[in-house]
């Protein structure tokens, strides 16, 4: 990948910041991205094609009289950038001053983040990607003839982010990522299983597409002959995928300082109080080695850090960006996020980085063995319609299996789990020891007792 040169991006950024100051901005910030993504797609049991995406751009935040304006462009030429500076200034001047404006951060040292860049990914050929996708597909197809892989992808990406501001921050972050996923269904005698999903994702080139193919196929086959069950309260095991969907729209939303300050969080005023089972400890760690959302600095140029959220069931901290931190008289926790190869188009938002549920000591088998009557849930549907302000949710568990007498008995269909996320977190009785990364969380399996199951 030629031309991806962070020195050049820094130069462009510095020039844009200077230009904004010259035209009257009191503060200015430039955020630049250059990224390249290469992927191979699978559709309907065959490799359907390849895709590459090349992206560059600059986003400028300028401040006039404590009011912020933002503008971006994909053209990194002098004239286009000058116009962008002017547009950002015009928008800042149209806005009313905000006395809470915290200003941009000053220059500081950034943490060393390990295992987030792999030269091998940058140099990977299309042929290698195609053969990975092919291995994933063939493993799924050869597992069982009832399996239909309907969608999948192997993808690698390289992204350079540069942040320059008028307080002296000049920061560069270079990152890579590789991922694969396969979506399968199984069909037999007119029955179609729900979609099953398996994946692997890392910041370095060590994903296992072959294993993903096999597991995705196995999951689909074991979802055949699903039965309906009755209404009951029972123990439920949530895997990482199900947990991520459920937590993102409930707990993660509720620990953002913005939601707390604006009465949108059931956790307001609960710092120091017990909000979950004492076996639950959660960190948000933007510096995690190999973390999917790890970087040196956040979207505002604050160093990434590790923040204790829940310690043995007790709420310890909220997630802050500079704006919400100023309101509460604390420091930003480095949770102002700008992400993706088109991050330059966006202004920062308050988000979790790597929301990490600390592993326990139970193996997956042990988690299952101790359940007399329960459910094993590999995904939930409809989590985005949860009530983020209260933590109340009502989701379809799919795919999911009934557990009886310590054994996985049969797949279930049309099963909803409903309740309040804090009640569920309070009822966690065991935590698995293996963790996986997905989206914003790093988590093991968890088991919660007494969950309301509606069918």
């Amino acid at each position: 990948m030629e031309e991806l040169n962070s020195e050049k991006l820094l130069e462009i950024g510095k020039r844009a910041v200077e230009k904004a100051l010259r035209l009257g901005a009191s503060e200015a910030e430039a955020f630049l991205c250059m990224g390249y993504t290469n992927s191979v797609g699978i559709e309907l049991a065959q490799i359907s094609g390849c895709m590459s995406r090349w992206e560059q751009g600059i986003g400028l935040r300028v401040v006039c009289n404590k009011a912020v304006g933002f503008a971006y462009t994909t053209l990194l030429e002098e004239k286009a950038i000058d116009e962008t500076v002017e547009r950002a200034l015009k928008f800042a001047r149209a806005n009313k001053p905000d006395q809470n404006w915290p200003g941009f951060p000053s220059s500081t040292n950034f943490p060393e983040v390990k295992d987030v860049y792999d030269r091998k990914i940058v140099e990977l050929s299309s042929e290698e990607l195609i053969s990975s996708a092919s291995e994933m597909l063939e493993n799924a197809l050869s597992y069982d003839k009832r399996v239909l892989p309907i969608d999948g992808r192997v993808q690698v990406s390289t992204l350079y982010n540069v942040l320059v501001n008028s307080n002296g921050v000049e920061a560069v972050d270079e990152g890579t990522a590789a991922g694969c996923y396969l979506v399968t269904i199984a069909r037999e005698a007119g029955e179609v299983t729900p979609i099953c999903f398996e994946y692997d994702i890392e910041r370095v080139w060590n994903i296992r597409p072959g294993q993903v193919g096999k597991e995705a196929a196995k999951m689909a086959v074991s979802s055949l002959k699903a039965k309906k069950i009755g209404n009951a309260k029972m123990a439920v095991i949530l895997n990482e995928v199900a947990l991520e969907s459920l937590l993102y729209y409930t707990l993660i939303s509720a620990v953002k300082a913005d939601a707390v300050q604006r009465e949108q969080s059931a956790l307001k005023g609960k710092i120091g109080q017990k909000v979950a089972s004492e076996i639950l400890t959660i960190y948000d760690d933007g510096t995690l080695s190999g973390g999917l959302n790890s970087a040196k600095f956040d979207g505002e140029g604050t160093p990434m850090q590790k923040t204790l959220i829940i310690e043995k069931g007790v709420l310890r901290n909220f997630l802050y960006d500079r704006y919400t931190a100023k309101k509460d008289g604390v420091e930003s926790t480095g949770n102002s996020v700008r992400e993706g190869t088109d991050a330059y188009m966006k202004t920062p938002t308050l988000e979790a980085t790597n929301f990490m549920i600390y592993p326990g000591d139970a193996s997956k088998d042990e988690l299952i063995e101790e359940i007399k009557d329960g459910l094993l849930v590999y995904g939930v549907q409809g989590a985005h319609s949860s009530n983020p302000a209260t933590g109340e949710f009502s989701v379809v568990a799919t795919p999911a299996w009934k557990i009886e007498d310590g054994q996985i008995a049969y797949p279930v269909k049309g099963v909803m789990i409903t309740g309040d996320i804090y009640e569920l977190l309070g009822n966690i009785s065991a935590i698995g020891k293996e963790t996986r990364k997905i989206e914003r969380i790093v988590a093991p399996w968890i088991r919660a007792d007494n969950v309301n199951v509606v069918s």
Partner: protein
Amino acid sequence: MGILKDKLLKVVEKGRSLGAEYVEVRAERVSRTSLTTKDGKVETARQGIDYGAAIRVLVNGAWGFSTLSSLNNERLKKAVEEACSMAKSAAGKLRTPIELAEIKAIEDKVYAKPRKDPSEISIEEKMNITLNIDKNVFDFNPKVKSCTIDYLDISGRSYFANSDGTYIEQDKLYVWSRVLATAKEGSILAYGREEIGSTAGFEVFDEQTPEKIGNLIGRRIVSQLKAKLPKGGRFPAVIGPNVIGVFIHEAFGHLAEADLTISGSVLADKFGKKIASEKVNVYDDGTIEGAFGSFKYDDEGVPAQKTLLIKEGVVTGLMTNRETAKKLGLPPTGNARAENFRHKPIIRMRNTYLAPGDYSFEELLEDIKFGYYLKSFRGGQANLDGTFQVGIQEAYEIRDGEIGEPVRNLSISGNTLETLLMVDAVGKDFELWPGRCGKDGQTAFICDGGPHTRVKEVIIGGRA
């Protein structure tokens, strides 16, 4: 503009010379203005200029796709070379080569004619409208605690050329806004949302005035504070236009997207068969003027049309792109859409709705002893096997044929086909609601809707 056309035609030519049997290139020059307000303050106002192109080629039956945020000639040349060479490599692993349904070559220029062009409206006025909505939400009741509003407009032009001889210039114009608000009383927190969207122009706010939107949301969240929790189980329900729309979209529409149908959705073997009660007629229509899901040509250069999906309970149509149309022997329906040049066109819905019947609202209610009236949705999702879940933000009990007390945190679920067979009366009213739909990482602007509709029973979830 001639320069850009020449650029595109050169890319098409280059792709052909590299052995591609099909080449298409889409370029965009679009301006996006957006802003977010939180509790009466404009957080940031943003403006962006998006320049870029997408190149898609078929080589030996395999797709190659390259996208770039630049219209630089060298970059374009490199991108088409890359697309062709990647496709050539992928073709080696292909079992069934991809072919496309024939379409007529088109040369056309489509210009937007807004009464109020968002690109000519000042940022101050956009801020004012948004802040005015905010003020109306807070003024509704002191129990309102927060209000977040997003505003977005997109205006610009897309340029499309392919190796079949089609060349289309088409304006893009969207105005969208979403309001999220919460209210609190004691320990009860209520949460509500609403969206506005149009392809007509900024005049959408003349109809959807800040007062109207503010009061609607204010009333919704404040009434939830007093609402009771639903009983879990199976109950009859009257489903309002806003909820029937999202049900038709999520639970049925996605299954009728030909790529998902072929992927084994429960509709796979149902073409020409009865899957719903004879009261059910469903359309996906890209031609409704000004509607949020309307456009003249899709991103494969196929004219949008009004597609009948269910006629009197029988599946009669699927939404296709050129690839699935060829595979299934169906007509291309103009449903291939890409969010922008960063994405490849995939099958998306446009304006999807249940067609009206002949019942009045009172007639729908009168035979229900106990059930629920589902007025407004919070979100919905469905699976290929036909299970769906729709969260409801505004619902009421129905007791002895009358609307009763408000109910909160309710959601409905079930199997699409079973639920469509349960439709036993369809109202004569009709509403279309704008929304956004996510699929494969892309967001499409759509509408969905229909009349008030009665189902004999549906699974009611929530906190039983």
